C-alpha cells in the first residue's frame, strides 16, 4: 500500500481521565475553551482536535499528551 493510501485515526482516553478528575464535559469544555459538543465529539472519536486544542485538553486533565491521545494505524 502506498503511504498516501494509509489510514489512521486519533484515539483518546479523555472520558476516563475526565471522570477521574471529577469534571463534567461542560467544565472540561469551558476550561479548554471549546464547546461541550466538541468535547463530546472528541471523546467519541468522531472529531480529531487540532494540536492546539489537544494540548489544552491534556493540560486541563493534568496528564501528559501521550497519555491522553494516541494514534492507531488502521491501514
Amino acid at each position, binding site marked *: 500500500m502506498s503511504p498516501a493510501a494509509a489510514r489512521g485515526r486519533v484515539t483518546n482516553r479523555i472520558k476516563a481521565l475526565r471522570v477521574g478528575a471529577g469534571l463534567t464535559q461542560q467544565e472540561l*469544555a*469551558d476550561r479548554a*475553551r*471549546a*464547546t461541550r*459538543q*466538541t468535547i463530546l*465529539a472528541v471523546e467519541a472519536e*468522531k*472529531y480529531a*482536535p*487540532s494540536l*492546539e*486544542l489537544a494540548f489544552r485538553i491534556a493540560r486541563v486533565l493534568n496528564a501528559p499528551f501521550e497519555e491522553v491521545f494516541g494514534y492507531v494505524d488502521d491501514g
Partner: protein
Amino acid sequence: MTRSEQHAWASLAANGLIFFYFQHRMLDGWAVADLAPKQMIWTYVAIVVAVVVFESVIAGVLAARAARAPERVVEDERDQAIQAAANNREHWFIAAAINILVIQLLADLAYPGHVFPRVDLTRPETIFFILFATLFAGHAVKLASVIVAYRR
C-alpha cells in the same frame, strides 16, 4: 445544540419561507409567469428585506441567549471546520448550476434541435427566477451540510 447548529436550523426555516414567497410571486404552475418589471423589482426588494430582517432577528436571538452565559465558548474550531466544509459544498453547487445554465444557453444557440430540457433564458423573468432559485438552493445546501455534519 451549538449556536452554529441553531443558526443553521433557523436560517434553513427562514430560507424555506422566503423561497416559498418568491416562487409564489414568480411561478404560475411549473412555468415562470409573465411579470411587469416593476413587479419583479418589488419582489426583489421584498426578498432582500426579508432576508436581512430574518437573519438579523436570528443573530440577535442567538446572541442574547449566548449573553446569558458569557463564560461559555459559543463557537470553536470544529464549528469553523464544519462551516468551511459547508461553504465549499455551496460553492461547488452554485458552480455546477451556473455551468448547467451556460451549457443550456450554448446548446440552445448552437443546436436548436437538441433533446435536453429547455429553459428560455431570453426572458428576464426566467433569468431572475433561475439565478435567485440557484442562490436559495445553494444556501439550502450549505445549511443542510452544516446540520448533517453536526448529526453525524
